[in-house]
């Protein structure tokens, strides 16, 4: 063999071996429980990773976060915290969970809770949560989103909101409407939308319709009109998409779209794009979670003076408001020690802001220092009194135009909170996306037929479990 061939063979062998080594290096954290630690609880050393470390561009909140980490580690010398900038993304969640890059604790929205529990992608932390001093004080309709049928707890709710009607005050004024007197009935919503569209040439009222948001908002409207998407509990849940409330809700959308032409020209909004359009002054009113203002400020640079928020009009015997919020869960492959440490972190980092004045003030000061919104109306995780008390602690630091949201804040606690459909909520929403889109893009859409088909399809999924 020539020298050149020798060299070629050696070089190829080195490359091949290094590749094998790279591929084969077993640094898969999932193999050891995702975080490189295992073992039982107690005083043994344990390391957990935690999500939502603010990015370096938000230095004040990041420093505050890291300071809290140090404080926690000082109080729990056997626990090491590895903060991560991970933020919930439904499209990458499962892959990150499988790949071991998902932190031990992570935040996610209420709406995904039941699906994650059903797929076994959350750890059962019932025992750890029940040791917390306030375990029995949770608002039951809020805690429900993190529980399975047997009442086992898989996550801890840390923030809750109710759905509300967001409106653009300056568009109200342009249309000759009083921005301090937002609509209180659905007929008024329709009238106001018509007036705004007439005066501004923009959408008086807009509706999300993509990525399951169409079904989500239609469910909100249905609840507000006294309907329910599913009835029953446990194994006896049945789909009831073709209820009178949904029919009325779709009829309202049909009238605004085709009779009044007050919904603009875009009918393919999702959460991100409708917020963008609203902040840009292209939408007069829309339905969304009461915490959306935070995103409108940080993501869409909304002019605060144009923003208004009110409660959804409730009509019908059994009308209620759909709730939402943030819950914090733990990786399903976390060891007992990691679960224990994770719940201690959740208690320390998330819950103390709600239950201890000092922690609430420190968190509020860090938010205000980076001009992050503080004071957006929320729903109680525990009880109304506790929420009022924690609001009072930080009242002097509030930097959102709260007076423009008072119509919501003063009335939301009087509205009955209704949780999301218990079985296959996301599939149900996806099915209803097409129904909402049909009503908004096809003048001859047959609402009864659409609902009947959607109900048949969702019933099959609900029966399959």
């Amino acid at each position, binding site marked *: 063999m020539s020298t050149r061939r020798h060299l070629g*063979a050696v070089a*190829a062998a080195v490359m091949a071996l290094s590749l094998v080594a790279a591929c084969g290096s077993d640094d898969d954290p999932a193999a050891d429980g995702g975080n490189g630690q295992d073992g039982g609880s107690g005083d043994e050393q344990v390391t957990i990773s935690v999500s939502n470390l603010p990015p370096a561009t938000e230095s004040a909140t990041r420093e505050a976060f890291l300071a809290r980490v140090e404080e926690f580690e000082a109080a729990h010398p056997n626990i090491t915290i590895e903060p991560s900038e991970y933020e919930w993304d439904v*499209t990458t969640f499962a892959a990150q969970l499988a790949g071991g890059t998902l932190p031990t604790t992570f935040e996610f929205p209420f709406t995904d809770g039941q699906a994650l529990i059903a*797929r076994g992608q959350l750890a059962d932390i019932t025992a750890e949560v029940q040791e917390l001093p306030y375990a029995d004080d949770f608002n039951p309709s809020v805690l429900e989103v993190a529980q399975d049928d047997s009442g086992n707890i898989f996550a801890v709710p840390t923030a809750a909101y109710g759905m509300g009607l967001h409106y653009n005050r300056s568009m109200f004024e342009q249309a000759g409407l009083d921005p301090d007197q937002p609509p209180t009935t659905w007929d008024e919503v329709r009238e106001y939308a018509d007036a705004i569209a007439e005066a501004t040439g923009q959408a008086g009222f807009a509706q999300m*319709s993509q990525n399951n948001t169409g079904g989500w908002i239609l469910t909100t409207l249905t609840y507000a009109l006294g309907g329910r998407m599913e009835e029953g509990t446990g194994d006896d849940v049945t789909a009831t998409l073709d209820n009178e409330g949904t029919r009325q809700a779709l009829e309202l959308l049909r009238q605004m779209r085709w009779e009044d032409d007050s919904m*603009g*020209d875009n009918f*393919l909004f999702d959460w991100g794009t409708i917020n963008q359009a609203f902040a840009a002054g292209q939408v007069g009113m829309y339905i969304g979670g009461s915490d959306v203002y935070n995103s409108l400020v940080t993501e869409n640079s909304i002019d605060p003076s144009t923003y208004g928020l009110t409660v959804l009009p409730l009509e019908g015997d059994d009308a209620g408001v759909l709730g939402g919020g943030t819950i914090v869960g733990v990786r399903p492959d976390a060891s007992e020690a990691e679960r224990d440490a994770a719940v201690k972190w959740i208690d320390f980092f998330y819950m103390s802001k709600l239950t201890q004045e000092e922690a609430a003030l420190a968190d509020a000061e860090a938010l205000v220092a980076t001009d992050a919104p503080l004071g957006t109306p929320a729903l109680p995780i525990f009880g109304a009194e506790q929420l009022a008390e924690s609001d009072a602690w930080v009242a002097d630091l509030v930097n959102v135009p709260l007076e423009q949201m008072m119509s919501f804040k003063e009335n939301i606690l009087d509205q009955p909170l209704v949780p999301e459909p218990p079985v296959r909520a996301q599939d149900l929403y*996806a099915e209803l996306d097409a129904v909402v889109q049909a009503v908004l893009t096809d003048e001859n859409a047959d609402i009864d037929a659409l609902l009947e088909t959607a109900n048949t399809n969702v019933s099959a999924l609900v029966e399959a479990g």
Partner: protein
Amino acid sequence: MNATIRWVRGGGLSTLLLLLPLLLVFGYFAWFPIGRAVVMSFQETNLVTDPAWVGLDNFRQVLEDPLFWTSVRNTLYFTGLALLFGYPVPLVLAVVMSELRRGKGLYSALAYLPVVVPPVVAVLLWRFFYDASQTGVFNTILGWVGLGPFSWIQEASSAMPSLVLQATWANAGATVLIYLAALTGVRGDLYDAAEVDGAGLWRKVWHVTLPQLRGVLLITLILQVIATFQVFTEPYLMTNGGPQNATVTVLLQIYNYAFRFGDYGAATALSVLLALFLAVMSAVYFRLTRSWSTT
């Protein structure tokens, strides 16, 4: 033993070693995931705990999903429209450009320019152009000649043609370059002979250019069919399957199973079905066209 030594001395070993990195990279990043996907299509998994074998349940679920046939119909519709508009356009452009005496480079660059624009940027840009209001970019331009306003992607009937229009604009450039390269291989004396026989431009194209490009045309046709069957970026970014599921394609359905609903079993089952269909279709296509391909 002697044969082995001969093989080593003949360079067999070094060839194998040189090939090994490629085999490993390809094996790890392409064949292994394909194999895993086939296995997963028979399992129910949350990607953490041990998967459960479910036989053909995933395939049954996918085939019984009301959106399955909708997505198949939509994909066929996209493929059909893309062939109708997207297949002849690059050929016509290439033939016209090859006839140009000056500025050929400039026109090639202009034709190729859309390919340089990142697909996501291009799709989002077109979504903006497709604004259905009277002040939308396309509606304003068409309004100058008294047309529109059109609903574009906001209406079920016009959404898919709108996607095809954008895809044709975005992808034609690459095919134009392939045709231009192939056209340089057509012998000039054939055109001269045709001209002597009194052939005009159209007859020269029909009797000389097209037969000479036959091999390339057959390949680009099957490549386009395979690519359009896997259309995803356009419906995902432009309409997300809407309105009324009018643009839900097979690949978008696969994506939704996996990343919207976390059902990896159903997603891989549908992927396997699509791969099988494309493999069979390609095999049949090459068998049927074997006698036509003379290059």
